[in-house]
């Protein structure tokens, strides 16, 4: 899982939920605060500037008001002065000395710095500052003109380097007789006073024509004044506010024009230091900045906390999901809160439980056979693998058993799958019960089962287990109240002799099972020669297909002796495969597989046709020999086809049906009793005799046999050949003969090889006998020779028999 390391570091991945939450909130705050700061600063500076502007404006108004008041005061003073009788009297004297002294004296009364007396014709008569001006035109005629019209006039004037507020009033006696000018110097003191009243820095400057600006008075320190002059010499600022930098400090500046004429400009410079005015706003901005910083810190911490409270449970869930992915279902997620994530955790835990139970179910389905509840092939293979590995380490023995039901397909086909399934369940249950718990039984598919014996040991040797299994299956199954015989063939393989791994062990067991089936021995342990035989068989199987067409099959005939007549009365036709390379092959080597491949029907028909043909030929030649042919259970199942085929063949050979006898094995009859019964009846109606072959091996009761339309019993060779060694066999043979006779059947004994056997059979009253004692199966021509050559011997037997009788 690639995400696993990321969960530890919250910001390792910027797209993580936590990072996104924090970034979002921080960005939001920065945006909002930034906007706020921008607006506040904007507003602040706007307000500051407005405030300053207002201050300046207000300052200017106050300033102008002060000027006006000052002017009025000066004018008033001047008026009073000019109306002073003594003053007028002195002026009227026309004595310059007197006039100067009265000007000085009275000028001092109102605080005028310079007093000038001018005639009504604007000619200076006396001047307290510079009396040399006497006789010259008054410097400011325009002011006198105003005064003439208004009765008084005032203006700011520049005289030398000084700036004056000049007030001109007439000297009335009572009509004007002269003009007196009172000049009040506008100096630093005046500026200072104005500063105290307006709260602004006040400077006065003037400019004559296009000359340089001159600074006359200021509240600024002397050191800063050149800078001020320089600042507004450069720019032609006019009356409106502006910022001027003086010695590194910004001043909001407003010019109040006092005189504005092309040749003469006098301005009052009103200033407010920006720093000073802005400081309250700076404080607000600073506070805002710290507030923002603190808010940011709180927000980062807060959103981290919130994000953590969201992401931690989510991480825990992710962790849990990862555990589930890795197959660890043991731990549930802790539910800490009952919020949405808590609900998610609860749901997650429920899901976890669901997954656990479903997985258990899936595992069960994957490894268990649904029908029998036994482990299935997959499970068996796995267990076998594991067992093999364990056995390898521990050098312990290990055995595998494979078995399936003999002719189980027939059960399914005839009784239906439900019955077959019930039978399998019963088999599974029985087998399970005879095994130890540590042994494993599995249904591998169909009717095939596997057994894994974990530890061998003497008591639990495979062979013993196999016998136990066979014994368990001996009791007929009862399904739907109907008893059913079932047999199994077991193949066994041992580790490590028969295979080093699971696959080879299974193959070995399979081969052994086939061997057991072939030999009908019930069980078989693997032998390497099985493989060869199997190989051989597989080849033969392929060759068998063309054997019929190629005429490689031949019939051999074994004489069947009538013990009563002492001569051969019939033969049993036995098929032989005359293989081009291998020579003769016994039917036991190929017939079971012929049956498996469905090829037996064809072989049977060939055999029947050939036997009937031969019998017909002999009959024509005067040899009256009855022909016995073996048919299988499968042949009996195709009753109509069989009956049709036989009648056609008999007619073709012009042979009476009585000359043919069909031999059916007891087990074949037991496989499908109903169909067998019906077929036998039809055969008998046709006139064909029927015989039960290998009697004594199929557990069929005589009562059942009685119901069948058979005419003959054939005692299995196992009983006959065992008579000499075991008296009980002789008893079985004897009682069978007796029972057969009681049922009206003739009795045939197979596999007679010794005199003793023949004598015993004769003693028991057996009707027919066949075996090597008389003759081996042989081709037709040989049989004919044998008949001729053995007439004496045959009669000898008969004579012997007769003699004994």
């Amino acid at each position, binding site marked *: 899982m690639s995400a696993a390391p990321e969960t530890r570091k919250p910001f390792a991945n910027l797209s993580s939920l936590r990072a996104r939450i924090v970034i979002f909130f921080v960005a939001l705050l920065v945006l909002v605060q930034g906007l706020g700061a921008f607006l506040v600063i904007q507003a602040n500076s706007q307000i500051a500037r407005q405030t300053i502007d207002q201050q300046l404006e207000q300052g200017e108004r106050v300033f102008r008001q002060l000027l006006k008041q000052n002017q009025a005061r000066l004018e008033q003073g001047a008026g009073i002065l000019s*109306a002073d*009788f003594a003053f*007028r009297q002195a002026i009227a004297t026309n004595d310059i000395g007197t006039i100067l002294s009265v000007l000085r004296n009275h000028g001092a009364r109102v605080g005028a710095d310079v007093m000038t007396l001018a005639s009504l014709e604007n000619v200076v008569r006396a001047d307290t500052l510079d009396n040399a001006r006497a006789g010259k035109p008054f410097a400011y005629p325009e002011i006198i003109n105003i005064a003439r019209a208004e*009765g008084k006039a005032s203006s700011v004037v520049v005289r030398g380097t000084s700036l004056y507020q000049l007030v001109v009033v007439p000297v009335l*006696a*009572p*009509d004007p*007789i002269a003009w007196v000018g009172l000049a009040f110097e506008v100096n630093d003191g005046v500026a200072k006073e104005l500063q105290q009243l307006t709260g602004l820095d006040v400077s006065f400057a003037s400019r004559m024509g296009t000359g340089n600006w001159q600074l006359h008075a200021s509240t600024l320190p002397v050191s800063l004044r050149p800078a001020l002059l320089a600042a507004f010499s450069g720019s032609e600022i006019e009356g409106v506010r502006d910022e001027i930098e003086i010695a590194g400090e910004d001043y909001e500046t407003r010019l109040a024009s006092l005189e504005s004429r092309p040749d003469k400009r006098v301005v009052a410079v009103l200033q407010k230091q920006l720093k000073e005015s802005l400081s309250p706003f700076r404080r607000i901005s600073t506070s805002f900045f710290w507030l923002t910083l603190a808010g940011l810190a709180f927000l980062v911490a807060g959103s981290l906390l919130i994000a953590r409270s969201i992401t931690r449970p989510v991480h825990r869930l992710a962790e849990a999901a990862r555990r589930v992915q890795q197959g660890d279902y043991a731990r549930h997620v802790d539910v800490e809160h009952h919020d949405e994530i808590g609900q998610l955790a609860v749901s997650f835990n429920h899901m976890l439980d669901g997954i656990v139970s479903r997985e258990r179910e899936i595992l069960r389905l994957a490894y268990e056979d649904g029908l029998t509840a036994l482990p299935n092939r997959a499970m068996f293979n796995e267990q076998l693998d594991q067992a093999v590995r364990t056995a390898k380490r521990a050098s312990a023995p290990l055995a595998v058993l494979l078995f399936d039901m003999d002719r189980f397909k027939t059960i399914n086909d005839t009784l239906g799958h439900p019955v077959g399934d019930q039978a399998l369940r019963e088999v599974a249950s029985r087998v399970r019960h005879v095994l130890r718990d540590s042994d494993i039984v599995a249904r591998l598919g169909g009717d095939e089962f596997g057994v894994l014996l974990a530890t061998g040991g003497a008591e639990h040797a495979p062979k013993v287990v196999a016998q136990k299994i066979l014994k368990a299956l001996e009791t007929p199954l009862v399904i739907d109240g109907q008893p059913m015989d079932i047999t199994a063939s077991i193949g066994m393989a041992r580790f490590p002799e028969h295979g080093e791994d699971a696959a080879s062990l299974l193959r070995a067991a399979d081969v052994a099972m086939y061997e057991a089936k072939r030999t009908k021995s019930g069980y078989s342990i693997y032998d390497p020669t099985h493989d060869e035989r199997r190989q051989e068989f597989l080849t033969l199987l392929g060759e068998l297909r063309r054997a019929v067409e190629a005429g490689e099959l031949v019939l051999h005939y074994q004489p069947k002796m009538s013990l009563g007549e002492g001569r051969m009365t019939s033969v049993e036709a036995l098929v032989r495969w005359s293989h081009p390379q291998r020579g003769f092959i016994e039917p036991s080597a190929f017939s079971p597989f012929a049956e498996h491949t469905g090829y037996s029907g064809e072989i049977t028909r060939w055999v029947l046709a050939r036997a009937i043909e031969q019998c017909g030929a002999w009959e024509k030649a005067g040899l009256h020999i009855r022909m016995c042919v073996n048919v299988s259970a499968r042949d009996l199942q195709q009753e109509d086809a069989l009956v049709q085929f036989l009648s056609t063949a008999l007619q073709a050979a012009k042979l009476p049906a009585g000359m043919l006898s069909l031999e059916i094995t007891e087990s074949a009859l037991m496989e499908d009793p109903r169909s067998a019964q019906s077929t036998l009846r039809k055969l008998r109606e046709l006139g064909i005799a029927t015989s039960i072959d290998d009697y004594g091996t199929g557990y069929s009761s005589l009562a059942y046999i009685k119901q069948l339309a058979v005419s003959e019993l054939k005692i299995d060779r196992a009983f006959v050949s065992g008579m000499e060694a075991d008296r009980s066999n002789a008893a079985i043979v004897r009682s069978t003969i007796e029972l057969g006779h009681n049922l009206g059947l003739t009795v045939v004994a197979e596999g007679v090889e010794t005199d003793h056997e023949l004598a015993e059979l004769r003693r028991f009253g057996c009707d027919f006998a066949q075996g090597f004692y008389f003759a081996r199966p042989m081709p037709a021509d040989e049989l004919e020779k044998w008949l001729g050559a053995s007439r004496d011997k045959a009669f000898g037997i008969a004579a012997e028999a007769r003699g004994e009788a």
Partner: protein
Amino acid sequence: MSRLALTLILALALAAPGGAPAASVQAQVRDAARKPVADAVVYAMPATGPSEARSARAAIEQIDREFVPYVSVVQTGTAVSFPNRDTILHHVYSFSPARTFEIKLYTGKSPGEIVFDKPGVVNIGCNIHDWMVGYVLVVSTPYFAKTNADGIAQLRDIPSGTYELRAWHPRQSAAADARSLVLEPFATPTVAFAVDVLPRKARYKPPLDRLKY
């Protein structure tokens, strides 16, 4: 006013030369706007030269804090008294070069007479009441008259002869041109003068009831 006028007429009648038959001149004074100008002085200077009055008298009263009359015309040598008809004091003065004088605070009859011995304009004022303005034109001829509200001045009993007729007004912006005039006996010529006169500036005069002095 009528009394003063009577006085002046009497004085003139007395002054008229007995032998020669007299002429009279009617002067019409208008301003630039052709409006009649009152208080203008028209006088005739005889070619024979200036003459000074002997024991002529005139009075300029102070009534309701004003000089009455506003404009006076006297022959040189006339003694003018300044009777105070108000209950408050006045301080009459003049700094005019033609006659500088000062009559300090007084009431009732003026402490003395002022003899105007030099021709010219005497601007008189009151040191206490700045608005009080009066004018005395001192001429060196006995033939003069003041225009009435219609701007007409009647100069009577002027002996025949050659004269220079002049007009003057205290608020004239420029002196009107003098006219030469030869008067035949019994002649009654009419002379028109155009004089630019500035409007009289009203000076602040506090109401009396508020000022109990």
